[in-house]
């Protein structure tokens, strides 16, 4: 069985290719797949009717205890036969339904085959969750098939509606299935049905599962999606919306009925909704002029009928229901396919515009008439057998509650009369010659149907005809299922055409007569229906609900999303103040004792930092504001040093300097002052929030520190640092070894930031080296302009205008640059044992580049670092990541340090720690970051000024740089 499902998957995947190769005839090949499954199932018929079952279990997700558990019992076999048999015939039909070169046929073929597989899986599944998975798969494929190419609004709406309703039901069902699984203690479907358990959990779960079943099978009040789904091509309507998918709910009801029919709530829901649906569907069907819609409402009505029979939970009605299910699958798909042929041949589906078609397409008329006879319940067809069995079961007491039996019997007799009436209306509408229309309308057949096109409906109609007299042969299969249900009467009647003169026969005759009368009075009835038509429909209710949801969404979005970033941030902060703040206020263990400071210098530096921060709030001049914020940074560096963190102090100092430089590079492009954009009240609110957050964070720090009792995780780090990391600078060992994973993530972030900066400035081309000096060009410029004599201190400073040059800076740079670079390398290598490391070393090297740029301009930067910063970033990341991989290959863990120690002739004892390479990567990335920032925010901005970059200006715009 698993193999059959896999076969469907493969066929669905190759279907588009096959359609491209072979055109519409590919459907013939695809039809072989369900046909093969049908054959396989027929071969198991003997085993199953003898009381055996076929099981197959494949492990799927062991962690969730989820298996692909499949089981073939009489019920599954019957439904699987319908699914595969009708599926094969519909695919066969598709081979002529489509015209050569129809667009979308490949996609359609794939989806239809995939649907056939999902539906087969659904009826075979023996696990609640597996059942759900297939259930939702059928929903999804139904959505895709209804929506088609997605080019028409009506189809999209119908597809969306079907999806929303059936998935909503499906979700309810999932919850219900989980609850049922919980109540019965197993998720194996057959065991659940055998021992459902009890209690409120089971009742609630059952009701939720019923919600899934009634949405899928289009019961009231969710019936309207099915007629709307008639937007789909006719084969889809015939297969999904008559024979297969809408039967999923019926199947589930039938599957659960043996164990669940006596659960409180089951019978009222199933019988009540089933009867109402049967009546409403039949009533509305009488009003339709579109043949397909007429059938669709007929399907709704019949689904209600099946729901009543199979949900009643008695052996007699269950058997009748199964026979009726088979009958319905046969006649309804035939009728839909017939409509498809009519539509294909004439291009018309409106029965007011069709006339005299029966004489022109006699074969089709016979096929249609056979199926219709089965639908109306005429002997000797299978529909008659099913209906007859249902009538006699109810008459003889197939429901334990007599009142209910009477109500149900009355209801289905009434419904059957309506069925007979709309059947007659269908036949008349499709094939009869009508007064007021020409003898044949439409005058010409666009595509007269061929033999292959008629084959599928013909086979289905014949099956319905033969199954009537042959119904005793169905008995073993039907009884195999029905035996699980309790017998209500003395003796179960077997299926058969003739049971003698009995009340049920009279009821059958009565429904036919009443149906005939309703048909005869059709024009009067039509007027009556129009007069009684209510303004509201469930469909409108659905759209109104969706619209109300939309409006609510707009309302919520409109109220909460005010479009102001400060407002959002303020809201978040107020929540922070309200929740953690109140916890801090009322529940926090406040520190019992305080110290004033670690050293008095701390207080002094703190005062400077706070004054600088306060100034940053006041100052509106851009550069000054940046400088005072820089002061807080430098102050922080001092605090770090005082706390005993030399690495931090060093890094903070370097970064602060770099930040200032980068700020200045950008701020030269912006106006001098920051304009005030806030009203005093806004400022007051901001101030209140800011003070609150400041208080909160200060207190949080103190409280957290005083509450700390556990030993720090880093207690063992000093030993580990030297033992495993081979270094004396513990902070550096943490970075490159103990927590190297973190560092790897962080340097990746630096790469991203550098890339982002460059992309924002360059826009089009972010790679490449900084522009280098072109001596020829320079010489030419030199002659034509009055420049200062070319200095020899720096390579490219001659390219600068004289007034921008500073000899002192050039000299200093010349002297210091190489020393600084050497120092940065020293920091890198010594960092493992002394303050320094890749970060600090990289920053120092970056500062050296800054110096060159400031002294010599953008060409000088190109001369100083003639490399692509992207290359540096990439190599750096490769180095750092590579150490991890190498470690892994040497048998250690990822990023674990290996220590190689050896004695060399000249150098003496050399100790090489592999994490050094990690640090080299860090170094390269930091240098790359600085270079990228300088190249973008420095050199490129200069170039745009120098060359008056055209992308900056629109014709009328005056730009003041």
């Amino acid at each position, binding site marked *: 069985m698993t193999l059959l499902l896999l076969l469907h998957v493969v066929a669905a995947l190759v279907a588009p290719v096959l359609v491209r190769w072979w055109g519409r005839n590919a459907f013939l090949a695809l039809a072989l797949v369900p046909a093969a499954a049908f054959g396989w199932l027929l071969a198991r018929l003997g085993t199953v009717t003898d009381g055996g079952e076929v099981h197959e279990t494949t492990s799927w997700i062991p962690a969730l205890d989820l298996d692909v558990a499949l089981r073939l019992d009489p019920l599954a076999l019957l439904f699987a036969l319908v699914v595969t048999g009708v599926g094969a015939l519909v695919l066969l039909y598709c081979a002529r339904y489509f015209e050569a070169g129809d667009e979308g046929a490949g996609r359609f073929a794939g989806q239809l085959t995939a649907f056939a597989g999902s539906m087969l899986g659904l009826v075979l599944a023996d696990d609640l969750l597996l059942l759900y998975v297939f259930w939702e798969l059928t929903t999804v494929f139904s959505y895709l098939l209804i929506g088609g190419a997605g080019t028409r609004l009506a189809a999209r709406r119908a597809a969306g509606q079907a999806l929303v309703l059936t998935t909503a039901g499906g979700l309810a069902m999932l919850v219900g299935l989980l609850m049922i699984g919980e109540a019965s203690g197993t998720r194996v479907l057959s065991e659940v049905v055998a021992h459902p358990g009890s209690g409120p959990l089971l009742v609630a779960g059952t009701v939720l599962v019923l919600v899934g079943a009634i949405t899928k099978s289009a019961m009231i009040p969710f019936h309207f999606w099915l007629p709307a789904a008639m937007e789909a091509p006719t084969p889809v309507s015939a297969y999904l919306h008559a024979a297969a998918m809408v039967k999923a709910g019926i199947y589930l009801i039938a599957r659960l009925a043996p164990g669940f029919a006596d659960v409180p709530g089951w019978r009222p829901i199933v019988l009540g909704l089933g009867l109402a649906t049967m009546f409403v569907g039949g009533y509305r069907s009488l009003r339709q002029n579109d043949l397909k819609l007429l059938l669709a409402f007929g399907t709704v009505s019949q689904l209600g009928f099946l729901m009543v029979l199979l949900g009643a939970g008695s052996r007699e009605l269950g058997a009748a229901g199964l026979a009726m299910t088979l009958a319905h699958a046969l006649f309804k798909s035939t009728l839909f396919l017939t409509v498809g042929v009519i539509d294909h041949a004439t291009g018309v589906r409106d029965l007011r515009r069709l006339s005299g078609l029966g004489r022109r397409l006699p074969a089709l008329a016979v096929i249609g008439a056979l199926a219709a006879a089965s639908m109306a319940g005429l002997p000797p067809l299978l529909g008659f057998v099913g209906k007859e069995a249902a009538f006699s079961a109810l008459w003889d007491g197939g429901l334990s509650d007599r009142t209910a039996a009477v109500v149900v019997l009355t209801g289905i007799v009434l419904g059957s009369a309506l069925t007979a009436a709309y059947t007659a209306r269908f036949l008349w509408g499709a094939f009869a010659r009508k007064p007021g229309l020409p003898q044949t309308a439409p005058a010409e057949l666009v595509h007269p149907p061929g033999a292959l096109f008629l084959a599928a409906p013909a086979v289905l109609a014949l099956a319905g005809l033969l199954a009537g007299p042959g119904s005793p042969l169905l008995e073993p299969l039907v009884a195999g299922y029905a035996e699980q249900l309790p017998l209500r009467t003395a003796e179960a009647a077997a299926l058969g055409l003739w049971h003698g003169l009995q009340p049920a026969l009279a009821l059958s005759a009565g429904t036919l007569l009443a149906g005939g009368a309703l048909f005869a009075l059709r024009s009067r009835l039509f007027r009556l229906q129009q007069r009684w038509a209510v303004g509201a429909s469930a469909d409108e209710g659905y759209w109104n609900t969706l619209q109300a949801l939309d409006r609510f969404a707009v309302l919520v979005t*409109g109220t909460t999303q005010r479009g102001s970033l400060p407002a959002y941030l303020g809201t978040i902060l107020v929540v922070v103040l309200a929740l953690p703040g109140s916890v801090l206020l009322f529940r926090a263990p406040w520190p019992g004792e305080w*110290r004033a400071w670690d050293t008095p210098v701390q207080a002094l530096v703190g005062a400077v930092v706070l004054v600088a921060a306060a100034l940053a709030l006041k100052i509106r001049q851009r550069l000054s504001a940046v400088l005072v914020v820089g002061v807080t940074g430098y102050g922080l560096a001092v605090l770090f040093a*005082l706390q005993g963190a*030399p690495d931090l102090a060093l890094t903070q100092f370097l970064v602060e300097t770099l930040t200032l430089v980068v700020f200045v590079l950008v701020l030269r492009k912006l106006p001098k002052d920051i304009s005030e*954009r806030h009203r005093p009240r806004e400022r007051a609110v901001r101030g209140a929030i800011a003070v609150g957050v400041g208080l909160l964070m200060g207190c*949080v720090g103190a409280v957290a*520190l005083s509450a700390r009792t556990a030993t720090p995780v880093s207690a063992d780090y000093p030993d580990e640092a030297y033992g495993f990391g081979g270094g004396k600078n513990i902070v550096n060992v943490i970075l490159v070894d103990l927590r190297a994973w973190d560092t790897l993530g962080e340097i990746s972030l630096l790469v991203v930031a550098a890339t982002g900066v460059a992309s924002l400035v360059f826009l089009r081309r972010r790679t490449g080296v900084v522009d280098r000096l072109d001596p020829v060009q320079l010489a030419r410029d030199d002659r034509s302009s009055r420049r200062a004599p070319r200095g020899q201190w720096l390579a490219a400073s001659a390219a600068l205008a004289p007034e921008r040059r500073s000899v002192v800076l050039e000299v200093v740079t010349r002297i210091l640059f190489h020393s600084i670079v050497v120092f940065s390398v020293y920091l890198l290598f010594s960092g493992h044992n002394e303050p320094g490391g890749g*970060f600090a070393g990289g920053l120092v090297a970056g500062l050296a580049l800054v110096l060159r740029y400031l002294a010599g301009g953008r060409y000088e930067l190109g001369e100083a670092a003639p490399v692509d910063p992207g290359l540096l970033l990439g190599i750096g990341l490769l180095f750092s990541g590579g150490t991890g991989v190498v470690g892994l290959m040497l048998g250690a863990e990822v990023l674990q340090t290996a220590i190689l120690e050896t004695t060399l002739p000249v150098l003496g004892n050399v100790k090489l720690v592999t994490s050094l390479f990690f640090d080299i990567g860090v170094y390269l990335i930091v240098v790359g970051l600085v270079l990228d920032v300088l190249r973008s925010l420095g050199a490129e901005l200069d170039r745009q000024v120098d060359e008056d970059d055209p992308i900056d200006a629109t014709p009328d715009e005056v730009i003041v740089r």
Partner: protein
Amino acid sequence: MTPTVVLPVIIGGLYAAGVYLLLDRSLTRVLLGFLLLGNATNLLLLSTVGGAGAAPILGLADPAEMTDPLPQALILTAIVITFGVAAFLLALIYRSWRLVRQEVVGVDEEDRRVAGRVGTDADELDPDDIPSDDIDLPHASWEDR
């Protein structure tokens, strides 16, 4: 552990100043606020160590007297990342200035449009109002579309 008075005060002050600037509409001030917040957070992390101590470098001091190296490692990378992010924000500011001659966080026009809207999207259509050529599908196939 015993907290000091000085560090929480500095931390609180930096946070307050940072948040105030962060709530501004000027992108430059937002960035300055971001830097202050970064400094405040680094200091908060450092204060979790407890008291001051010797540098965590073996050979220079006894391990018992050293400060906790772990927060230091966290702060060290945070400092460098703050630089990277600050550079990115600066590039954003520059871009914004170059494009619209503004460096402010303006009101999101799209949000305002949504807020001012009363109706909904396509679903306002009544099913009966769909043009008939869209519903009626001649020949129920794709070729006529």
